[in-house]
């Protein structure tokens, strides 16, 4: 599965459009990470636990999106966008969406 945030896959031509595909996941902070991040929050700087958490979650959203595209018979997703929203205290939704296409 080729994934790109450009209008088309560079070096390929789009031959078929399948429409919008999306994947999302809601993650809550792990209690251990939350305590560590709370302590880190006093001195400031990178909250590494959260960085990794969001990275994994975004990977999951992308995987779900790819799966959806694959089911429709697409081999690429173009114009991928991301959205992050904190739905509740300590929980965030990671959302990825794009257009499933077939390229040659």
């Amino acid at each position, binding site marked *: 599965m080729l994934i*790109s945030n450009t209008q088309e896959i560079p*070096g390929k031509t789009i031959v078929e459009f399948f429409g919008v595909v999306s994947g999302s996941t809601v993650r809550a902070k792990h209690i251990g990470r939350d305590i560590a991040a709370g302590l880190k929050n006093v001195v*400031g700087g990178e909250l590494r636990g959260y*960085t990794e958490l969001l*990275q994994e979650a975004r990977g999951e959203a992308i995987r779900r999106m790819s799966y959806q595209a694959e089911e429709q018979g697409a081999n690429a997703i173009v114009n991928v966008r991301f959205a992050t929203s904190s739905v509740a205290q300590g929980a965030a939704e990671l959302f990825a969406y794009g257009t499933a296409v077939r390229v040659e």
Partner: protein
Amino acid sequence: MIELSVYLITPVMLLGAWITGTLLERRHFQDLLRLESGAREILAVTVEDVPAGWEVEECDLVIGNVVISQDYFKRVAASIKGIFGGRIGVYEPLLERARREAVVRMKEEARAHGHDTVINVRIETSPLARARSDAKGTAGVEIMAFGTAVTLRAGTRKRIGPGGGVPI
């Protein structure tokens, strides 16, 4: 004695947070200089498509993210400044170093996949949790940089910038 230590805990925490936070910030800026010079050969541009004349062999979506938070002292300082409005200077270096870090991570991922250029770079900012009004509570902000990493076919590679447009 116990009462005294209760009164002292907030100023001590503020001072400690200020010193450690400032030191961490300074060290991060030094690290960034080193990291950025290491990732310099990866070209990142915000143009949406591959410029004419560039032939692409393969592409990949690359993402670099970082969650960063402000130290306790500067959060309190910003909340006081927020009453009067105007420019909140203490938050500017925080967001700057987070953005630079995210871009460097994105470039490193592109390099790990064997690509040399990142096109259509976008940088997004999202607050993870709002600081409570008393300036306590986690106030993380996530910066994410993403783009399409491409490998250009040999001979079509061009540099933008001083003396640009010349195949290298």
